[in-house]
């Protein structure tokens, strides 16, 4: 038992190991230690959803999870969505539908949508609302985001 600990996790397919203070939040580890600054911090108390990442495939708020809790986990961040220069269908759908304005909340939204569309290729409207409900967007008023989800569903179906 100490105030620091050596942890390892696979982030976007790449294995990382580091010694961290146990109080380090997962988002501070991803951003500060690994330099993956695409995940953003909006409230640090688990409300806004900007920091959402996938933890073993499940969307979680990385501001209210300690990095040590993710020891040994598979983590996916927005940096892991695109395939090289090719945007992920979710990213492409956001682009085409103007699903973002300032873009600060967008990575978090996309990670939750990623979880949803990995689980089901035909989400219901309720499932979409439930998925987006844990995120705050201050710019778009959500309408274009919902349209982007529908377009992403089509794109992902078409690519199968």
């Amino acid at each position: 038992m100490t105030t620091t600990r050596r942890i390892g996790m696979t982030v976007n397919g790449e294995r990382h190991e580091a010694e961290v203070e146990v109080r380090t939040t997962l988002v501070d580890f991803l951003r500060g230690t690994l330099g993956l600054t695409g995940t953003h911090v909006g409230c640090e108390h688990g409300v806004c959803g900007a920091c959402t990442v996938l933890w073993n495939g499940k969307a979680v708020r990385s501001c209210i999870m300690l990095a040590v809790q993710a020891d040994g986990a598979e983590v996916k961040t927005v940096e892991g969505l695109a395939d090289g220069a090719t945007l992920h269908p979710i990213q492409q759908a956001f682009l085409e539908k103007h699903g973002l304005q300032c873009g600060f909340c967008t990575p978090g939204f996309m990670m939750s949508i990623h979880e949803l569309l990995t689980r089901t290729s035909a989400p219901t409207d309720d499932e979409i609302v439930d998925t987006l409900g844990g995120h705050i967007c201050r710019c778009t008023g959500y309408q274009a985001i919902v349209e982007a989800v529908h377009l992403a569903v089509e794109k992902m179906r078409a690519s199968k």
Partner: protein
Amino acid sequence: MSGVDDIPKSVAGLPNTSPRYIGQPVERLEDPALLTGRTQFIDDVVLPRMLHCAILRSPHAHARIVAVDTSEAAKLPGVVAVVTGEDAKRWSNPTMTVPPGWGTHCLATDKARFVGEPVAAVAAVSRYVAEDALELIGVEYESLPAVADARKALEPGSPLLFEEHGHNVMLQKVFTWGDVDAAFASAVHVVQQQFRWNRLGANPLETFGVVSEWDVVDGTLTCRGSFQAQNHFAMARAMVFNLPLNKVRFISHPHGGSFGGKGGARGTDITALLSRKAGGRPVKWIEDRMEYLAGGASQAWDRHYDAAIALDTNGKVTGFKVKLLDDLGATAEGWGAVSAAKPLTNFTGCYAIPAAQYDLTIVATNKLPGSPYRGMGPPPHNWVLEQLMDLAARKLAFDPAEIRRRNFIPPEAFPYTIASGNEYDSGDYRAALETALEMADYPALRAEQLRLRSEGRYVGIGLVNTIEPGVFDWNAYAIVGQPGTGVPEGATVAIDLFGKLTIKVGFALEGQGQYTVAAQVLADYFAVDIADVRVVALDTLSAPPHFGPGGSRLGVALTGAVLGAAQRLTEKLIAVAAVLFQTTPEHVELRNGMIGVKGMPEAQMPFQQVAQTMLARSDLLPPGIDPNPESTFVWTAPGRTPADDQGRAKSYLTAANACHIVLVEVDIETAQVHIKKYWIADDCGTRLNPANVEGQTQGGVAQGVGAALLEEAVYDEDAQLRTSTFMDYLLPTIYEVPMTEKRALCTPSPFTPLGAKGCGEGAMHTTPAAILCAINDALAPLGVALFEVPASPQRIWTLLQGAAPR
């Protein structure tokens, strides 16, 4: 040299017979970087030897600071510098304010005036350690009585925020336009009502952040941060630190939303002091959300209204009086007073009201200083006026649509000068109303409302029309002490050796898609692919005069700047091409991306080739032409006038308008409000990128829903903040925001580049009014009405306890 009057007022005036981008929902150039997490926001910046700042804040609303002991904090390993009010006094001046004389240093010196006011700060090797150090700072406070209620702050014997003034009144003045007393004396009907708009604010998803570097050798200050108007922050820092302006360099980073308030003067000054004390090491401060809510630019519009309209027998409004008590909080540092002045630009809304009066009092209390927020004041003002219109309709037994029809400024009356002095450029308000009524199938909606009422269900229809003043001007704020007329916005357009185009601007990404708009305009001007245009941001020392986004102006101003620069550049290209074509410049023109001899279709060459000639063939340059295929133009709105003694000025250049109709249901047992449907017909002239406009509108609806139903910064009577987290300050989510049906009308502005009008704030101007009108329409059969926002379930429930038996 071409000037502002030569900029085309419509797309037809461009040197391109088939523009491809303007008016299209072009995908945003900004998005690929944002979508892949590569856009560099301020918290993503890491500089060598950078330190992290944490700020100790007053837990007291009002307290004398007896002593601050930082010795233990300074000893904590990892702590490099600690600053207090003493350092602020030694190295800086109190910030300038509007109105003047109500400001303080960035760290409390003699006393703290609100909960969350910075008292001391630490720079350490990490934010974690810096926060550890804050716990080791000892502050001895002597608690003072606090005042949280603006009405009490006016009373004799109230605690004083600034003892030297002897009172808490920051500004008090009555503005009278026309014979308003006669209008009320001769009125057939008068409708009067008190209203309360509670504090709320911008809350962009990204809080403010800054990295300051004080070069102790050169005596220069460099600040990177999420500054909405970097030049203004730079100017203010020069004054705060007694630095020449050219020794202050501000580099604005893309920011995660702003809505008026992005930028933290105190945090910037505190990090500058820390950097100086740390021998010049860069110091980063990222405001956390609780700091933002308690001590940031998070609160605006804390207002008590008493307002009335006078009507004649036909329902024509003949006079409008507004008495406003505006609670600005502890100081005037946040530019919030500007929000009390801006309603002069659309005081009488869409209506031809000949006489009006504005009795304005701005008062100081022990709450967070007010800041700008999207709309800058008219959202509450419109909310008051539109509800008075509904009250009048009810009194005169008119349909809410009909009373508005009878009062609209008619389309043939433009340009129209309203009583408070501003000039509306153009519009057809009746058309917006009728369009929205048709979209909503208004008669059917009223029938459905009656049917549901017979089932004991209370649905209400809100229908409002508003003006969105666009393209802001400093002259609108003269009444609160802001000097100046005109807001310059510059852009530089350059062609490189390979023939590609770069637009250089003085503002960072903020979310509105302005870089895309600039690229659309320039691509169409030169008839090139939009991929050939890049937009880059310059810092305050390299950019032309600029302001950036704000006051629904940038789309118009930037279009003017880009087109102005492109035209000046074209003049250069033509001068060079004239030599190549062995003719004189007046015979040469730009047409569809080619520079050619007028009337000779074959005598032409791509404009890029002319630019390359300039850069690579000095032997071919005519005398007096430098080899730089680059031009700068600084656009400012033409024809603006300084304010007179009653605040009247030609100020905001454009007047967009909208009609919103909303259907709500109030569950009278639980006091819950559900927005069922929402329709919008709006007119902002030429839509440069309709998808951008639609996004601004829908985003404004969301913020309007927040204002109407959810958002409130609550202080108790001791001025303690009770909404210090996102668990209590409630932002609207997808569950609360309606998906809207929108239809666009177009009355181009006769005064602006390409006929565009400002459109960034319109929905925020309208939605709160629409929702409250709808709620009160739903509650009307119960004989109760709510004139306070947010219309929280608690407030509605309390109201219903006094309602008629049902």
